[in-house]
């Protein structure tokens, strides 16, 4: 084959490759959803892909995303605890303490709003910069250090390839925007509905014990009202699968504090009030998912309730510190000892043990260590 022919063939090959990368749309991402789960909505600016999720998984578990190399997302979001950390409130890389309890990341793809009480924060992509770059408190402590982080990741053995695979159309894919997008895609992929309750819903009559079924009936009763705020396939009224723009945010006050007789919550944790300045919003927080609730203690926005039994005490009392802001869906109730045990049993049946160990969401750096 002559040189000219070789060159021509080379040019054609390059042209075809460029065409494939730039003009042929990537295969749409295939969700693996439980049968009774809807498909989550995904922002157009960050479509899902397996390569993006894999990059996000690495970044999620990488302690280099902190100012001193001590902390990764996984530090406060541990898979074995349904991506919480078992603490009342969390500690950042430099020892500063957050005011709030770490939230579970299972099924966050369906969240209408992110974090405990932010009415503005719709997408996962909006939340991720807060722990990365926030200063009050310092969580991962990267404010002002984004250039340094980019340089470090771009010089790594593995990351450039992961970024190129995740963002094939970009000449310089290692960027803050892409770090955020990849982590968001990974979080969005953590979808699971394989608890005993789910198996029961799918037709396995033996999946729940008699006690658990009685607890389920109590949970969904008008007498207890749990389902009003913790209902639906994801046990929260803060879930959606529809168009984000039309879904309003929902926040509730369950009567945890009443410091001044007019519903005041502790200064560092007033919930929705911090955004609206309206006293009626004092102490209003999201009602998060109850899935995996047995492994995500302690409870409430500040971790101030340690056990499920104490949670039930709080709701049975109509709130441990009722105020005029307390939700109408927290009226209080009376339970027999058997009923209480049934309710707890039902809540424990919401644990999805497979999600806690699913290798798709596990630490890729631990895998490498084991192989060695």
């Amino acid at each position, binding site marked *: 084959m002559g040189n000219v022919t070789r060159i021509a063939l080379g040019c054609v090959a390059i042209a075809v490759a460029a065409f494939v990368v730039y003009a042929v749309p990537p295969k749409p991402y295939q969700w693996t959803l439980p049968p009774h789960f809807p498909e989550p909505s995904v922002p157009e600016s960050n479509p899902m892909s397996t390569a993006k999720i894999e990059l996000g998984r690495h970044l999620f578990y990488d302690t280099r995303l902190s100012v001193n190399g001590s902390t990764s997302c996984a530090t406060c979001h541990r898979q074995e605890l349904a991506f919480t950390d078992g603490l009342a409130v969390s500690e950042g890389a430099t020892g500063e303490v957050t005011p709030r309890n770490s939230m579970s990341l299972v099924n966050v793809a369906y969240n209408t709003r992110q974090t405990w009480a932010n*009415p503005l924060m719709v997408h996962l992509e909006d939340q991720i910069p807060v722990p*990365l770059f*926030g200063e009050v408190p310092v969580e991962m402590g990267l404010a*002002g250090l984004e250039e340094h982080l980019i340089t470090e990741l771009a010089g790594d053995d593995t990351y450039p390839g992961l970024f190129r695979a995740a963002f094939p159309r970009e000449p310089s894919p290692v*960027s*803050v*925007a892409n770090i955020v997008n990849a982590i968001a895609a990974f979080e969005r992929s953590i979808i699971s509905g394989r608890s005993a309750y789910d198996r029961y819903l799918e037709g396995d009559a033996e999946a729940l014990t008699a006690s658990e079924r009685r607890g389920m009936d109590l949970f969904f009763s008008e007498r207890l009202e749990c389902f009003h705020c913790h209902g639906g396939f994801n046990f929260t009224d803060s879930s959606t699968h529809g168009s984000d723009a039309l879904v309003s945010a929902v926040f509730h006050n369950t009567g945890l504090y009443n410091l001044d007789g007019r519903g005041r919550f502790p200064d560092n944790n007033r919930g929705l009030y911090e955004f609206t300045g309206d006293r009626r919003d004092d102490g209003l927080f999201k009602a998060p998912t109850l899935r995996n609730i047995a492994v995500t203690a302690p409870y409430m926005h500040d971790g101030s309730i340690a056990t499920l039994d104490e949670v039930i005490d709080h709701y049975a009392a109509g709130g441990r510190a009722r105020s005029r802001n307390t939700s109408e869906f927290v009226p209080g109730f009376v339970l027999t000892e058997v009923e209480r045990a049934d309710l707890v049993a039902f809540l424990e049946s919401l644990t999805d043990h497979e999600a806690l160990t699913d290798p798709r969401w596990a630490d890729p750096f631990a895998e490498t260590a084991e192989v060695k």
Partner: protein
Amino acid sequence: MRSVIQTLTGALGVLLLTACSESKTPVSIVFSAVHDGAALSCDDGPDAVRLIDMRFYVHDIELQAADGSWRLLDLDAGTPWQNEDVVLIDLENGAGACRGGSAQINRAVTGVAEGGSFKGLRFTLGVPFELNHSDPVRAQSPLHLTVMHWHWQAGYKFLRAGVRDGDTCAWLHLGSTQCQGMIGAIEACRNPNRTTVTLEAFDPTADVVAIDLAHLFAGVALTAPQPRGCMSDPNDTPCAPVLVNLGVAAGAPSAPVFSRVRNG
């Protein structure tokens, strides 16, 4: 033939006259930090007082020409500190009491304005609403800096300033609060917290803009070991004087935060 030459000469004359009266003058407006009038930096200041932070955005900078009219400063775009709409001023050098800041400094706003000499300055502290709620990870410099974004409040920190006196400290993050809508579609903010500063008789060739941190924090008790941290919350009583001092909350400031100082 003569009439053609006359017409051409006349036209040329008009053109020349027009060119002279529309001259654009390069302008540099320099900012400096002071404490009760005394120069203040991360490494030096009166007694035990030091700067711990001083970074802020300004926009819509105007200069008053000799005829009294205000001329918008056409910003030199494309530097790391300026785009055509906003400028980031950074008076801390990351050293001394400013540890954790950035080493780079930017003291001046630069651009061109129509007119030869100027006798007044007007500018707004902050980021205009139209830019304030855009995505910082995709924004044009100087709006791309994570340290200047208030990620949980969906907007920028217009000003981050702080002062240390011995062991005690206070700092301020100023930005719009109580915003409504969603990140990506913010509708309005109940507390925009932008303030327009007017400095009469300001001559950019001879004067600098002094920002007085004693006046900024007048009425705010500096604290130790934890600093007094102020985040533009109108209901945060110990910090409320700062918002009054800046002119973003109702009330009379005891002394102006921004003033004109002749360059010595």
